[in-house]
C-alpha cells in the first residue's frame, strides 16, 4: 500500500514536470548552413556586401541568425537577400541599426520557393567595419565573396522558425526529424514507437515495484533479517 502511494505520487510529480517542460515556449531551430562560427571569417568594409553559395533555405525559416562583431560599436543596419540562379530575390530581410554586437537575428520574408535559393548576400549599411562569424575554408565554389572578391571563408547562418513555440506544437516537426539521418528503416513511426515502448517499460517497472514491495521477507521480524532469500529461487 505504501509502495503504491509513493509510486502514484512520484509519477504524478513526473507527469506534472513533463507537462511544464513541454509547454516551455522558445524560438525553435529550422536548420543551418552547417558552418560553425568558430572564428570571424569575413571582414566587410562599411557599405560592403558578402555573397556566398547557399545550399539550403528551410521553408519555415523566419529569421536568420549570424554572429557579428563591430569592435564595440552598435551593429549597423544589415540586409540579407536570398537569390535564385537568375539573381531574382527568393527571400529577404533587414535588421535596423542599433543592435549590440554578438549574435543577431535578421527577420526574413517567407520564401515562396525556398528550394531555388542558391546564393545569399549580406549587405552592411552605415559607416563602420563589420566582421562576421564563420569558418576558414579553402577557395572553392562555396567560399564567400566580399565586394566581388573571393575569400578563404564561409559565414555561419542558423535559421529559426517564426515566433516562440512549445514542444507540444513542435511534435509533428520533431517526429519527422527524428526519423532522418539514421538507418533507412527508421522514419516517422520511430518517435511514437519509442514513446509507446517507454510507456510499456514504465508500466512494467511499476508492476515490478509494487510486486517487490508486496513481498514479505521470510522470517521478517527484525532489521537485517537472518539470511533468507525473499522467495527467490536458490541458485
Amino acid at each position, binding site marked *: 500500500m505504501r509502495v503504491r502511494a509513493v509510486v502514484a505520487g*512520484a509519477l504524478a510529480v513526473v507527469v506534472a514536470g513533463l507537462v511544464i517542460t*513541454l509547454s516551455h515556449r522558445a524560438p525553435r531551430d529550422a536548420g*543551418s548552413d552547417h*558552418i560553425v562560427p568558430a572564428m570571424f571569417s569575413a571582414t566587410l568594409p562599411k557599405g560592403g556586401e558578402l555573397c556566398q553559395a547557399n545550399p539550403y533555405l528551410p521553408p519555415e525559416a523566419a529569421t536568420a541568425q549570424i554572429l557579428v562583431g563591430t569592435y564595440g560599436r552598435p551593429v549597423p543596419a544589415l540586409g540579407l537577400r536570398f537569390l535564385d540562379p537568375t539573381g531574382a530575390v527568393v527571400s529577404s530581410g533587414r535588421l535596423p541599426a542599433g543592435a549590440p554586437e554578438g549574435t543577431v537575428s535578421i527577420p526574413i520574408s517567407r520564401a515562396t520557393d525556398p528550394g531555388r535559393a542558391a546564393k545569399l548576400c549580406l549587405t552592411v549599411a552605415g559607416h563602420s567595419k563589420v566582421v562576421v562569424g564563420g569558418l576558414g575554408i579553402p577557395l572553392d565554389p562555396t567560399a564567400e565573396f566580399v565586394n566581388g572578391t573571393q575569400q578563404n571563408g564561409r559565414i555561419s547562418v542558423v535559421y529559426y522558425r517564426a515566433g516562440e513555440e512549445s514542444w507540444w506544437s513542435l511534435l509533428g516537426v520533431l517526429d519527422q526529424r527524428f526519423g*532522418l539521418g*539514421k538507418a533507412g528503416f527508421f522514419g516517422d513511426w*520511430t518517435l511514437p514507437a519509442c514513446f509507446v515502448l517507454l510507456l510499456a517499460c514504465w508500466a512494467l517497472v511499476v508492476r515490478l515495484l509494487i510486486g*517487490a514491495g508486496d513481498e514479505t521477507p521470510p522470517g521478517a521480524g527484525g532489521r537485517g533479517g537472518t539470511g533468507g532469500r525473499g522467495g527467490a*529461487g536458490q541458485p
Partner: protein
Amino acid sequence: MIARARRQLGRVPRAGWLVFLVAFVNAAIWTAVIPPFQVPDETGHFAYAQYVAQTGKPPPEGPLVQFSPQEYTALANLFFFDVIGHNQERGVITPAEQSSLRASLATDPSPVGPGGMSSITNQPPLYYALAAIPYWLSPSHDILARLEFMRLLSAVLAGLTVLATFLFVREVFPSIPWAPTVGGLVVAFQPQFAFISSGVQGDSLLFFASAATFLALIRAYRHGLTRRRGVWIGLATAIGLLGKLTFVAFVPGIAVCLALIVWRSGRAGRRDAPVAPARTGPGVLTRRAAAIGAGIAAAVAAVPVAAYGALNATVWHRGGPTGGGFAGAATVAAPGQQAITLRDTLDYTWELVLPKLPFMNHAYFGYSPLRQVFFNGAIGRFGWLDYSFPARVYTLAQDAFVVLAVLALVGLWRSRRELLGVWPMAVGFAVMALGLVGAIGYIGIRYLMSTGVPFEQARYLFPLLPIYAVFVVLVSRAAPRRWAPALGAGLVILAMAHGLFAELLTISRYYG
C-alpha cells in the same frame, strides 16, 4: 556444461529477467534517440568493429587513415564534424539533407579501411569481434543500418549488466526481497549508463564484465569457491581483460577477493562466519578446495589473455603482446618537461577525488574533479560531452546527494548485522575500486601532461555500478522497515524521471 548453464539461468528469478528486459528496452530506445556516431568515441569503436568484421583481424594500427571510406562518407553527410562540440548545430534534420546523405551512401564507398591507429585500436578485440556479429546479421549492408544493429548489441550488454547487478544485490541483501529490483532498476535508468550503452562502445562490455565479476566473487564467497564458481570468476575476468584494458585495474582487487575467500574457507560454524543461508558461505568448503577454485579462476582468466598476447605478437603483428595497449601508460615524461614521478601520480590521483593537501607540491585541478567531472558527469554530460542539463540541476543533485549519503549511512548502520557477513568482500571490492581510481589517475596525469587535455570522464567509474546499486538500497534501508520498499520505489521513479528528462534534453539537442 550447456545444460548446466541453462539450469543456472533457469534459477534466475522472474523479476531478474523483467529487470533485464526493462534495461534492454530502455537502452534500445536510447539507440534510436541518439543520432549515429554521437556517443563518445563511437566513430573509432565502429571503425575497429568494421575492420574486424571485414577482415577477420584487429586493425594493424599503423600511421594510416582511421576510418573506412564508407564511414568517412557517412560522417561528412551527417555533418558529424560540425555537430560534435557545437550544441547549436544539428545534423540531418531536413528531407533535402536526408536525400543528400542517401545519395552519397548510394555511391557504395568501400567499407574496408586501412585500420589506422586511433585511441581505440590498442584495445583488445573481444567487443569488436562480438559487434561484428550484428554487423553481418544486419539485413541491410547500409552503414547506418549496421550501426543500429551493433548498437542493439550494446543494449543487450546493458541488460546483462543490470541483470548481473540485480543478482549481485540479491547476494548482498539476501533477506530483502525488494532490494535486487530497486538496485537493478536504478542502474537500468541511470541516464549516462543508458546513453553510453546505446552506442557502439567498448565500455558496454567492460560494464558487463565488471558487474559479472562482482557477482561471481560474491557468489563464491556466499556459497563457496567451488571449481565451477572458479570457472565463472575466470570467465568474467577474461571477458573484462579481453574487452577493455581498463579492466586490468580490477585484477589486484580480484586477487585480494580470491585470497580472502580462500582464507575464510573452512570456517563454517564460527562466530564470524557470514550471515548466509544454512550450508552456504565460504566455510562450506575446505581451504584446499577453495584454493583449487581460485587456481582454476586464475587459469581460466590467464589462458585466453595469454593467447591474445601471443596472437598480437606473432600473427597480427600489432607491435607486441599488448598491441600497444599500454603505450600511453608508459609515458614517463611530458614532451620537453621533467619526468612524471610516482609522487606526481599519487598526488594527481589523490586530487582526483579529494582536496589537495598542503604537502602536495602541485595543484592539478582548478576545480573539484570528483564533483565537476565524476558527479556532474554521472548526472549527465551527453553527446561528445557537448550538452548538459541547466546548471541548477547539478546544484540540486549535489544537495540531494548529500541527503542521500546521510541516509545511506543510516541504512548502513541498520544493515550492519547483515553486511557484517560480507565484510571481507567489502575489503576486496574496495581494493577493486581503488585500483580503478588508481588506473584513472595513472593514465590521467600522463594524458594531461602529453596533451594538455583532461582525461577523466564519469563513465570511467561505471564498472562500479553494482556498488552504486548497493548504495541506493542502503539509502532505502534508512527508512523504517515498512517504509523502506516505498523509499526504494521512490528512488527508482526518480531514476526513471532522470532518464526521461535526459532523453528529452537529447531530443531538443539534436532535433529541436
